[in-house]
């Protein structure tokens, strides 16, 4: 029983540590050694794995709410070309600039 309690306490402390590092782990901001430690814990711990899934979904939702219109990207590439060929002096801002 003591061993089980010790094991449960050790695991909880490891979870507490993992949770404090989850954001940086998600963003690739940890050093390699710590990244491996967190990844190993997350792979092994159901609840921490759930936690990181929530944050991944959250980030995907934030990014996904800003879909990129490809026609706008095409126009912006043309705008960069006009900046370079016009020296930036004659280019005006406006979404309906003709290509």
């Amino acid at each position, binding site marked *: 029983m003591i061993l089980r309690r010790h094991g449960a306490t050790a695991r909880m402390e490891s*979870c*507490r540590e993992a*949770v*404090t590092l989850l*954001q*940086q782990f998600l*963003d690739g*901001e940890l050093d390699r050694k710590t990244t491996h430690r967190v990844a190993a814990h997350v792979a092994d711990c159901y*609840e921490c794995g*759930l*936690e990181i899934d*929530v*944050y991944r*979904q*959250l*980030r995907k*939702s*934030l*990014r*996904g*709410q*800003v879909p*990129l*219109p490809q026609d*706008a*990207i095409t*126009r*912006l*590439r043309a*705008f*960069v*070309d006009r*900046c*370079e060929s016009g020296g*930036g002096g004659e*280019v005006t*801002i*406006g*979404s309906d600039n003709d290509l």
Partner: protein
Amino acid sequence: MGASRGEQRFSSFVLPELDALLRLALSLTDQPADAEDLVQETLLRAYRSIARFDGAHPRAWLFTIMRHAQANTLRRRRPVLVADVATVDGPADAAMPDVVVQQVMGDTFDAVVENAFTRLSLNDQDVLRLVDIGGLSYADTALVLGISEDAVTSRLHRARSRLRDRLARSGFAPKPRFRWQGALS
């Protein structure tokens, strides 16, 4: 008729960042046309100041220009009422009440995230835009915002924790086991 060294540098820096620039602009403006105008203004300002750019951290450099451009645009439209984006720490206004969001958009994960995002302080929204939407590193986000990396980490954790709490209250995520207790800055 090759491009000059300065022109080569400009397109090589900005073209890889167009997607990120447009994504950030779309999150800062109400209309896609306004977002495109904001990116164009950013590109123009960047082109005119390329000689002063040292080549390091192009995305952070462009995002900083964009934030200044947007702040200027907002000040021109509402010179008295709008505070500088970088200094406001209070809750953003014009967030729809939960009950209206549910009626209009349905109770979806994305709707809850979107509504919770609008309820964050402008500082918290800023850091989420730059890291989650703009894809900036913590170091580059610190450069853009003029704060320390520790402060970026702290704000990011706080902002995400608040969104996560809202998801848990709406039933889209389990309750967090641990409360994040980092320092606020």
